């Protein structure tokens, strides 16, 4: 009797506590709607402000998430896969019904700073307001001016595919209580203005940490492991702190070139979710990209003295920007494959499929990256290598950039794994990868999904 009473009492206490918790979260979750505005004429905005907003949108890579495949910029509808389900990006053109055309600047500011939409609903942190909250008032105004002067397009994103209870937006209030640290960027007095500009751009609009900082089980960035490497859409975002895996150490100049053009002869090619980032940075303000590069280089830090001679030797061994040794005329390329590269299936595939470009002696982007310098080969996971083997490197629109054929159609899973094992052993001094087979399976299923969606879009079974 007594014991039963205790259990009941405990149970009642729990219910009360739960009720309080729900009440607190509900109170935190509640925001009032902000009065809709009538659509404002585009000439209300100053051209300089719009230009500033365009630069910020490029640095923030807004169009990459807010554009569906083959869709118009900022119209939204891109499925963003998260560990919790699929979230669809929204229409941020100034369409009054389906976009942000009726959002006042105050509503826009609240979305960026606090992660709440005009109607007062919580926004999922797939929209990186944990970074955008760092933006200055002036930059928010500029972004608003830029977006409100885009062509309005009527289009609604499909509903998110999230399981209970995440499909209820108020739970985001709980997430924010635990992990969200709002507030504009506070300059670090220990550093100069240029460094602080870079830090402001990287941690604010650039939201680099959204991919390059690992996330915890609830999807929040682990601030204690700043830039220690994360993942995005099936790709590894490599560490960009002292643990950076590039054999030749990065510096501000190489980072600048890489971010600007999407590849660097001593490092490799920006692929996967990084490809659109560098494509956008190609059109951003030069000084800002330099600031970003200088700041990230400072986070990666000085190379350990022991590694410096090794990096210099490696760099000296390649000719990333010089004239290639082999002429480009037809017929000469095929002779570039070395006669003997080793034994085994992986070596044979390498000799027949890879060496023709990667050992051509031609400089990047006309020849392949020197694989001993490749971050994808030296990194902790085989994922990016496998993804690139599957998908190749498609030609960049209107830019001088490396291309690579895709091998997903011809290589079987076993052949892909053989090749990956061979490349890791031949070109790096790192430990063998353990999760090659899993990475191959994941890349195969991703490709199948992508093809099914293309086929479905064409009205095929």
């Amino acid at each position, binding site marked *: 009797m007594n014991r039963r009473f205790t259990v009941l009492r405990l149970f009642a206490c729990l219910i009360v506590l739960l009720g309080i918790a729900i009440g607190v979260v509900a109170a935190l979750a509640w925001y009032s709607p902000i009065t809709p505005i009538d659509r404002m004429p585009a000439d209300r905005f100053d051209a300089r402000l719009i230009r500033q907003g365009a630069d910020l949108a490029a640095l923030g890579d807004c169009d990459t998430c807010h554009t569906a495949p*083959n869709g118009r910029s900022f119209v939204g509808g891109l499925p963003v896969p998260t560990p919790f389900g699929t979230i669809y990006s929204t229409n941020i053109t100034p369409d009054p019904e389906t976009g942000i055309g009726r959002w006042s600047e105050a509503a826009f500011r609240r979305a960026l700073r606090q992660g709440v939409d005009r109607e007062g609903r919580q926004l999922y942190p797939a929209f990186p307001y944990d970074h955008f909250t760092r933006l200055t008032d002036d930059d928010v105004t500029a972004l608003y001016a830029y977006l409100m002067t885009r062509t309005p397009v009527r289009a609604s994103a499909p509903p998110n595919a999230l399981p209970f209870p995440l499909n209820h937006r108020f739970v985001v209030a709980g997430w924010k209580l635990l992990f969200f640290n709002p507030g504009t960027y506070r300059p670090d007095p220990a550093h100069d203005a240029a460094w602080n500009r870079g830090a402001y751009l990287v941690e604010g609009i650039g939201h680099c940490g959204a991919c390059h900082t690992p996330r915890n089980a609830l999807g929040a960035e682990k601030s204690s492991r700043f830039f220690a490497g994360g993942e995005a859409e099936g790709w590894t975002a490599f560490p960009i702190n002292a643990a950076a895996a590039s054999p030749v150490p990065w510096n501000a100049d190489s980072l600048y070139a890489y971010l600007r053009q999407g590849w660097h002869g001593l490092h490799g090619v920006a692929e996967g979710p990084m490809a659109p980032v560098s494509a956008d940075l190609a059109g951003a303000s030069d000084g800002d990209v330099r600031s970003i590069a200088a700041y990230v280089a400072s986070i990666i830090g000085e190379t350990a003295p022991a590694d410096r001679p090794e990096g210099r030797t490696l760099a000296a061994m390649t000719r990333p920007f010089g004239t290639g040794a082999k002429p480009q005329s*037809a*017929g000469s*390329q*095929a002779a570039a*494959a070395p006669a003997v590269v080793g034994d085994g*299936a992986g070596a*044979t*595939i390498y*000799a*027949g*499929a890879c060496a*023709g*470009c990667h050992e051509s002696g031609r400089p990047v982007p006309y020849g392949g990256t020197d694989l001993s310098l490749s971050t994808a080969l030296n990194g902790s996971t085989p994922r990016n290598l496998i993804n690139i083997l599957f998908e190749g490197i*498609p*030609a960049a629109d209107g830019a001088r950039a490396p*291309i*690579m*054929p895709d*091998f997903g*159609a*011809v*290589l*079987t899973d076993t*052949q892909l794994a053989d090749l990956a094992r061979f490349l890791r052993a031949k070109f790096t001094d790192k430990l063998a990868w353990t999760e090659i087979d899993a990475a191959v399976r994941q890349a195969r299923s991703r490709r199948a999904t992508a*093809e099914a969606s*293309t*086929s479905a*879009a*064409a*009205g*095929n*079974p």
Partner: protein
Amino acid sequence: MMDLTVNGTTHAIDADPDTPLLYVLRDHLGLNAAKFGCGLGQCGACTVMVDDRAVLSCVVPIALLAGRRVTTLEGLGTLDQPAPIQQAFIEEQAAQCGYCIAGMMMRAQALLQATPQASDADIRHALEPHLCRCGTHMRILKAVHRAAALMRAHDPVRGAL
């Protein structure tokens, strides 16, 4: 020695396992439709099908192809009985110098086998890796649309799917 199945016939091939498929097709088997363009997998002229998927034969070592089905343009139709893709390219007069056309046709064939109702965007996207220096792109696109219609007429069940 390895066995290589091309256009339904299995051949014993005496070549190094890292020899590109393109060389074996042209030098060993006399199948000259697939062309050597760049030798780097960058122009598309060497495209053939392996198990119904378009691949660049200049960067595919034959060691990969044990137990696989290779199809070249010669395997689709003949002069007397051209396949729909060939008939469509003839009717649209889509070749000028013709060097890229065999590769274009094989890529289009693979696309239309997988996606009979391919849209214009699908076709443009699929043919992106192929270079044509004569500039017959618009005719090539028309020919692929025509081939799709011909294939649907040949195979109304699949075409209607």
